[in-house]
């Protein structure tokens, strides 16, 4: 299972990549494999606020529905519009083209408290 060393992770199987004060958020390779065929991703809009630990969207897979939990607090500055037509990108490229939202984080240091790649590997092993 692919767990990139440079990313941070959550117990709910999201990943976070912090660049400056903007965090990109998606779901992990493990999560996409567990969900299997993603058919629809419901995301917030640019300008919406997300709160650490609160839901920011839902993922419909063929077999099940799951909620997306925000690992950080801040304002949504970009949403992956490609997922509207190609939700399968979440399965084929979870850490790349399958990203979900970019959030301007008020407190970038809060990302440090998320799980490291090693911590996350332990969680899913």
């Amino acid at each position, binding site marked *: 299972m692919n767990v990139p060393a440079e990313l941070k992770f959550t117990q709910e199987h999201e990943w976070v990549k912090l660049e400056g004060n903007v965090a990109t958020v998606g779901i992990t390779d493990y999560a996409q*494999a567990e969900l*299997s*065929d993603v*058919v*629809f991703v*419901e995301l917030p809009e640019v300008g919406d606020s997300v709160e650490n630990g609160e839901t920011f969207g*839902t993922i*419909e897979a*063929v*077999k099940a*529905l799951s909620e997306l939990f925000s690992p950080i607090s801040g304002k949504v500055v970009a949403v992956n519009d490609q997922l509207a037509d190609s*939700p*399968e990108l979440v*399965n084929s490229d979870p850490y790349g083209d399958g990203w979900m939202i970019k959030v301007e984080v008020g407190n970038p240091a809060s990302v440090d408290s998320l799980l490291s790649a090693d911590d996350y590997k332990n969680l899913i092993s």
Partner: protein
Amino acid sequence: MVDMDTKKTPLYESHVAAGGKLVEFAGYSMPVQYRGIIDEHKKVREAVGLFDVSHMGEFFVRGPKALDFLQKVTINDVSKLEAGQAQYSAMCYQNGGIIDDLIVYRFADAYMLIVNAGNIAKNFDWLLQHVEDGVALTDDSDDYALMALQGRHAEAVLQDLTKIQLSEVKFYRFAEGDVAGRKAIVSRTGYTGEDGFEIAVGPNDAEPVWQSLMAAGSSYGIEPIGLGARDTLRLEMKYCLYGNDIDETTNPLEAGLGWITKLDKGDFIGASVLRKVKEDKPKRKLVGLQLTDRNIARHGYDILHDGVRVGVITSGSLSPSLGYPIALGYVEAELAVPDTELIVQIRNREASAKVVKTPFYKKPY
């Protein structure tokens, strides 16, 4: 996760070796998918796929009163069956509620019933309660492995491995013979809406027959198919899934199974209630729904009309063949008309849906 009490089919090791994602289903560890539900679905629609359905149960009914017994406990007319013919049917309680749906096979000297895995014990107990002198009933589920070879190339693949003349085995007919050198029962049946066969063999023959079918199908691109795609394939055909679309609280007439409910065949368990239901017309009907948005309507979601709850979703998925979400649900009978606009309450959202004709999908050959 698979716990210690979960049963394994004789093909379990093949599923693990093929990268199958195993889940517990009806007490068995079964592959829900290998590569992905949508890919596997399309493989069956466009070429051919192989399913392990060994979890299904097999009962045999023998004896001079076997026909009378089956006429009493099943709703279809078993007297119409010739040897070598199979029939889709159901068993009902006195109140008309469905105990299970099943297929009845008539052999020269016996009948075989193939029943849902989750209902094996319940069905067998029920049947035992109604057995009379002159009827021998046995549960032979552990003596059979069952595979389904489904898709337009199924006949070509299977013909490579058997001397049975498959072109003569018509829909819902079966033959006994060797497949890949092993004794088998081959029926032209399935749960996908494609041409195809179900192949019953002894448990020790399952693995070699499975491998032979995979090898014979390789030039057609055959792949193993999991229960996830089995569900989306059957949903596109509006084939009922026991526990979702039909159960002890639904009757066959409202479920659209009037075509197997032979109220004129004589008395059978449930007949008097079902005759009354037919006379009064069912109050609700199972319909196919097409949804406008991308959300999936799932089992248990409410169906609304003019702001009032008029029914409930029983099954739903994205239709991989059609590219939009489809669902089955019970609605009040007067709304069970194609093009009726309805609302499905999907969590906090009201999703538009309309009643459509079924099956949702028809094979193009």
